[in-house]
């Protein structure tokens, strides 16, 4: 599948091929009990990307040899639980793209997923030992002592 295929499908969520394997690892390490661990890992990465404003445009994605971008969900509907989560509104209201930016939503999501993946990798959040770091970067996730 290439980019064009993804466009035509109108809803494939991916992440950079650079994180293809790492995404699998995150899925296995952090979301092993979930019925769709890879998707959940991607949402997690997306949220971090959104929170930290880490958007990696597809044009900037590195593509190691012989590796494809990781497919997270073939259809957008798989990613938003068939409309349960209104990511369009979310990205709009949070102003996650500039006015002139006509990037389709699924690509936009994919770019934030990739941005979040980088953060996760750099902060070794795949290692559960390191999760106290989350306290520094995401204090609102924890009760005040």
């Amino acid at each position, binding site marked *: 599948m290439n980019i064009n295929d993804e466009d035509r499908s109108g809803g494939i969520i991916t992440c950079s091929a650079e994180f293809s394997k790492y995404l699998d690892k995150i899925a296995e*390490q*952090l*979301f*092993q*009990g*979930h019925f769709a661990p890879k998707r*959940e890992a991607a*949402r*997690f990465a*997306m*949220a*971090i990307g*959104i*929170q930290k404003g880490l958007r990696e445009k597809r044009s900037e994605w590195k593509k190691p040899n012989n590796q494809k971008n990781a497919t997270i969900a073939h259809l957008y509907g798989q990613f938003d639980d068939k409309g*349960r*989560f*209104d990511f*369009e*509104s*979310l990205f*709009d*209201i*949070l102003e996650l793209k500039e006015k002139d930016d006509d990037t389709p939503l699924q690509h936009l999501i994919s770019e934030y997923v990739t941005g979040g993946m980088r953060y996760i990798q750099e902060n070794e959040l795949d290692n*559960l*030992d390191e*999760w*106290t770091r*989350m*306290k520094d970067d*995401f204090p*609102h*996730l*924890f*009760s005040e002592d």
Partner: protein
Amino acid sequence: MRLLEIEMTNWQPYKGAGKNARRISLDGNNGEKNVIIYGQNTHGKTALWQAIRFAMFGRVLKRISGVNGKDWKPLVASDTKEEPLLNVTAHEEGIYDFGVNIKFEHDGDVYELSRSYSKKTGISIPRRDNQMEETFTIRNLDNGSYVQEKQKFVNDLLPEGLARFFMFDGERLMEYRNLFNDTKDIHLRNYIEAILRFPVLTQGSEDFEKIGKTLKGQISKHASKHRKGEAAQEELLEVESNLDLENDILKDINVELDDYNSKLGVVNEFLKKEEEGKKLLEQQDKFREQKENAIIEIESISKKMSKALPGAWRAIITNKIDLRLEKLEDDIKRQKIQTQRQGEIKIELGHLENRLKGRDCLACGTSLEKPSADEEKGILETMAELEIEHEKLEKARLDPDPDYLYKRQKALINIRNDLKLDMLVSLEEDLLRWKTRKREAEQNFEKSLKNVSKDRASKIAENTVRQRDLYKQIGAVEERRSNKKSLIKTLEYDRDRLQSILGSGGGKKPTVYRKAEIKRDLVQELKNAWDAVTDSHRESQRENVEKEATKVFLHLSNKSHLYKKLSISETFQLSIINNKGKSDSGSPGQWGLVAYSILDALTTCSGIEFPLIIDTPGRSIDDHHLNKTLEYLLNSNKQVIIFPEGSELKPDFGDKEFSHLCAATYQLSQNKEDANMTDIILRKSNLRS
């Protein structure tokens, strides 16, 4: 038994009673026990010989009746003129008491046997035997007691049927020889078997058979009763059969268990010796286990942490969402206020319009007067201002589009999540702790590996595994055994229940029934053993008699160099076997010796201790053989009483040759005054004084 004295009272030719009774003593000073009693024909040898027999058995055969005869001498003289036992002269003199006393030694005690007859009360002159009354006593002179079962006591010493072998008449010696040659003569076998005690054995076998038949009858009766309740019986049999089967299986299980326990013993022994190594290995296991536990815990914690994470993405962006939501809510609130103001303006405008027209205000319900011109101008200005305000509000109220705002608000509320990840912190602490433990366990494990060589560890581990397996197998077998025992218990319960249903009539065999069966089996086994012993004893005795007779015959015969042996067949047919191994016809003299040899062998092999009492010993053999025979007999361990006729053994020669082997020698001679009476004269005496 050894005879010590014979005392005769009015016995045949021996008249006299009390101190005049006739006596023969056989008690030698130096243990001599033989006597030779010389006498011419008709001088009373046979009467004396018969006195012993009378004392023993109470009757005397007529001489003409032979060895198989059954004609008895009468007690008293009758019209028949037959020679009676009561001395005829005494009878004529009105003395009717007669009898014989013998003293003998048996099993270390001295006994006095007394058998006598006297006329019954009321009889003046007895002429028939039934007019006579017997008195028979046996007294132990050592302790003064009287034997109660007298005849049985005598028969135990010497059964009457066997007396012929110990008390025989030389004149009839050839009859004995003939007996051995006539295999068709049933008496031969009877006599020989009797003296060799075969009848006892044969009778024993028959007795066993009789007892067996009686028991069979009893069992049959029991079985008949026992057959009642056949259905229950069949079920009982099946239960019992299953019980046997299960008990067999239980035995096998026990064997299997023993085998496992034995193997376990070997393994335990090894591990006991390797206690230290085992401890080290146990430590290894412990560390390995700690490590494995840590891994499990880590996985468990990781799972817990990962369970907390789904949905976390919503919480991550919730603070951002909340900021936007606030703004959205402000806009919505603003738009709501603006809408409200618009409504108020509309009401105000309506009110002012009604005022201008002088109409009642429907909104506030007041009646309005038409305003003045000035007032109308002011109202119009106010209305213009209100309409401008309304228009402005309308623009502001729709920017942004309220639908847009509501949709976004809804989307954000749907996504936001107040999830707190505090639990992750404590879980992470746990995780770190377990990871530390895991590391320590790994390090300890590595260290412990160095303490035990691989080979040793392998053996210990192998035996430890074997031990565990054996315990497991033993456990399984014990469980099987327990199940089997339980099953057996159930079967036993069923059996007891069925036996209880059947009761004593047809279920469990009653004690008497079982005892009868046990007795029957026992008797059958005894009979089998008895028969086996009988056959073996018969053959053994035959061989003994043959051997003993051959020994005596070859000792006595002057032609022993021509003979090899005496042969006695299984049917007790007798033959002389010469050196060529063939049967030899032998001379009458040789056959006389054969008869002596056989009689001696039979009495020896019978095991009966009774004197050998021989009347006219030389009647069938020549002088040479007689002397040799007497020498042999008088030198044997047996007590020998011989009654030679004058021509057989001359008293002087006899005394000279044999008196030293005797307690005494006696001479019987006709009383000079009464030819019917015999005197006993002591010739040579070695008697106890």
